[in-house]
């Protein structure tokens, strides 16, 4: 008979059993017993953030860059409400997280106790699942279920709410090796008849297109996607979430598609006759107006693990529910045994058309500008890091430029908040990335508006010596808001100008980091090189960029993919 352990001990033992090496959190009244147990051991490392939102983003960045489950620990009440933005961010992008939250003692629940909030209720719409543990004997199996649910099927955040008294009560500790749930059995293997139908469509295609999303990254199927595209010589576009799923430097890559996608990707998407959607969900920022998209006739194959993603916004012809990795392997196997080959002459014609679209050179910008162009900074960053850095971003123009100009050849290198669009995500996510990849080069591309939403994390970076490179594209505007105001609101820049900015150099120095201010195009390269030479230091690079630069191409809201505004 094992000795009985307290709920707090059980919580930490569960994390150890799951092989969790690093968690992100912030202590408080309801989780004090859990923190006490953390203190007594050294297998699970705790990273103390400065705000709970950052704890979740850091766990999220950790998960995205490593394929492990990210873990965060927060206290009840405000600890949880602060975490909600982070949880919703992870939920929208299907990132596997386990969040452990403290709760007031069971006897106090519902009595408006100090730091009480209905955590399960507040987080319900933005988690894959959540639990309130009322009995310590249920704790271990609940945590096991949380990891299982978070990491299988379409991944997502799972929250476990533990009342303080449950962390004190004792129970036998047995960590289940495996859990099964009759109500949760994600489909992994695709239906072979559907896969066969897909193969037939693929081989009949005259103007094929592969449209690959974040599901390829989450399923670790970049290699298979690349194999499929290359064996067929089909063009491939990636969504914002899917960058790195197919090498951006490959000649078959058309770059990103969507609202700020390339001309060639959007046109090919609109005018293809067979579309192979892989782990992507036809969202509003990707296909624009679904009615306009449906004006053109095309057959759509859709591979996705989540049945509810299929035919949600766009009706598809061959749905395949299953894990992208599994389905792609099957599909490749099948195509290899087929005697029929893709129609070469029409494919050649199609590539000719695509090359004509490419000649539009939709990402061009003024390379001789006397003011720093943000695109140029990212190009230089790409060159200096040899395309091999982990890049996180915040949300706005800089995010789109990063997606357009940093050529991701590998998966899990591009970490951004695609679905929720959370400003303040970049730096805390980069902390998680750096902790998951201690030897990796990590840069956070941000703007002066976004970075201030979680600027307090400069302190965390100091404490744990995280040598991030913060690439701040400082245009003194909320750039994307300003761009929309210029295009759609008669140049009335309502509240989008950033007045009274801090001196970012001094600010970084006050936290013990290195700060640099770069004002001239000719200094960009040198500054970046110097920053990456400072291997053990966080360097905050404040680039003073062109205030009027806009992101092109742009598909305005409600418009069709082929109705782009071009530079």
């Amino acid at each position, binding site marked *: 008979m094992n000795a009985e352990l307290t709920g707090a001990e059980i919580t930490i033992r569960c994390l150890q059993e799951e092989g969790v090496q690093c968690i992100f959190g912030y202590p408080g009244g309801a989780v004090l017993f859990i923190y006490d147990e953390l203190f007594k051991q050294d297998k699970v490392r705790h990273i103390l953030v400065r705000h709970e939102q950052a704890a979740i983003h850091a766990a999220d960045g950790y998960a995205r860059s490593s394929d492990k489950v990210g873990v965060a620990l927060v206290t009840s009440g405000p600890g949880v409400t602060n975490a909600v933005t982070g949880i919703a961010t992870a939920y929208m992008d299907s990132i596997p997280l386990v969040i452990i939250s403290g709760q007031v003692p069971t006897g106090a629940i519902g009595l408006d106790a100090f730091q009480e909030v209905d955590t399960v209720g507040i987080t319900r719409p933005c988690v*894959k699942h959540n639990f309130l543990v009322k009995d310590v004997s249920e704790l271990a199996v609940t945590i096991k279920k949380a990891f299982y649910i978070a990491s299988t099927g379409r991944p997502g955040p799972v929250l476990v709410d533990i009342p303080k008294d449950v962390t004190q009560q004792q129970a036998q500790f047995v960590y289940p090796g495996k859990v099964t749930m009759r109500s949760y059995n994600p489909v992994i293997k695709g239906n072979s008849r559907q896969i066969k139908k897909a193969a037939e469509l693929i081989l009949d295609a005259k103007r094929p297109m592969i449209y690959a999303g974040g599901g390829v990254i989450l399923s670790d199927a970049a290699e298979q996607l690349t194999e499929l595209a290359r064996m067929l010589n089909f063009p491939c576009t990636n969504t914002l979430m899917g960058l790195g799923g197919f090498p951006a430097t490959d000649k078959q890559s058309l770059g990103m598609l969507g609202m700020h996608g390339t001309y060639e990707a959007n046109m090919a998407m609109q005018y293809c006759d067979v579309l192979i959607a892989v782990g992507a969900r036809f969202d509003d920022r990707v296909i624009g107006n679904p009615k306009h998209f449906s004006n053109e006739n095309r057959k759509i194959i859709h591979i996705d693990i989540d049945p*509810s993603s299929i035919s949600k916004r766009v009706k598809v012809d061959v749905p395949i529910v299953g894990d992208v990795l599994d389905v792609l392997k099957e599909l490749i196997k099948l195509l290899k045994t087929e005697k029929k080959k893709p129609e070469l002459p029409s494919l050649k014609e199609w590539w000719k058309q695509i090359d004509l679209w490419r000649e539009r050179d939709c990402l061009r910008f003024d390379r001789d500008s006397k003011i720093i162009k943000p695109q140029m900074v990212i190009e230089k960053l790409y060159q200096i890091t040899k395309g091999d850095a982990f890049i996180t971003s915040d949300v706005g123009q800089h995010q789109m430029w990063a997606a357009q100009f940093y050529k991701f050849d590998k998966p899990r290198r591009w970490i951004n908040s695609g679905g929720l669009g959370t400003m303040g995500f970049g730096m805390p996510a980069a902390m998680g990335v750096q902790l998951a990849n201690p030897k990796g080069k990590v840069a956070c591309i941000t703007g002066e508006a976004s970075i201030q939403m979680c600027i307090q994390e400069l302190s965390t970076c100091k404490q744990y010596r995280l040598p991030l490179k913060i690439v701040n594209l400082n245009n003194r505007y909320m750039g994307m808001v300003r761009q929309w105001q210029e295009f759609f609101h008669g140049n009335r820049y309502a509240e989008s100008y950033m007045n009274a900015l801090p001196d970012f150099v001094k600010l970084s120095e006050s936290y013990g980091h290195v700060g640099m201010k770069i004002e001239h195009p000719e200094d960009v390269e040198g500054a970046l090189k110097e920053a990456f030479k400072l291997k053990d230091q966080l360097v905050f690079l404040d680039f003073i960029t062109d205030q009027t630069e806009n992101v092109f191409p742009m598909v305005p809201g409600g418009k069709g993919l082929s109705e782009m505004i071009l530079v």
Partner: protein
Amino acid sequence: MRHIISLLMENESGALSRVAGLFSARGYNIESLTVAPTEDPTLSRMTLVTIGSDEVVEQVTKQLNKLIEVVKIIDLNEGDHIERELMLVKVRAIGVERDEMMRLTEIFRGSIIDVTNKSYTIELTGTSSKLDAFLESIDRSAVLETVRTGACGIGRGEWVLRV
């Protein structure tokens, strides 16, 4: 179109609010919702009536299926099914109204389950439209109170929903 959706879910606290929350979050209509434990106390059976196009109802069932606590789900409209709803209606019953109410109750195969010198309480079971028809056929001003359970449904013959 009106759809009647039947589901089995884990009989756990919070499961019902997940379903209700899903409908409000995604802007789906709920006409009615009934839920109670089954012969297996670990499971609850829920019947949902919703109105929407086929595409919307397809999304509704897919989203419901995604909820971790939902074990099984069927759209009863996909086959032959029976549905019943229970209504208790308290009516004014004074003078000539007393005989009239009793007759109508008999026609609709209801029963009077509580009587005072001024009122009857009538119990009526049937499809939702039958209950509507009953209310249509009596003097509206005589209705003092109505309580309806919302529809519950079951497939015909061999068609069963079970784990």
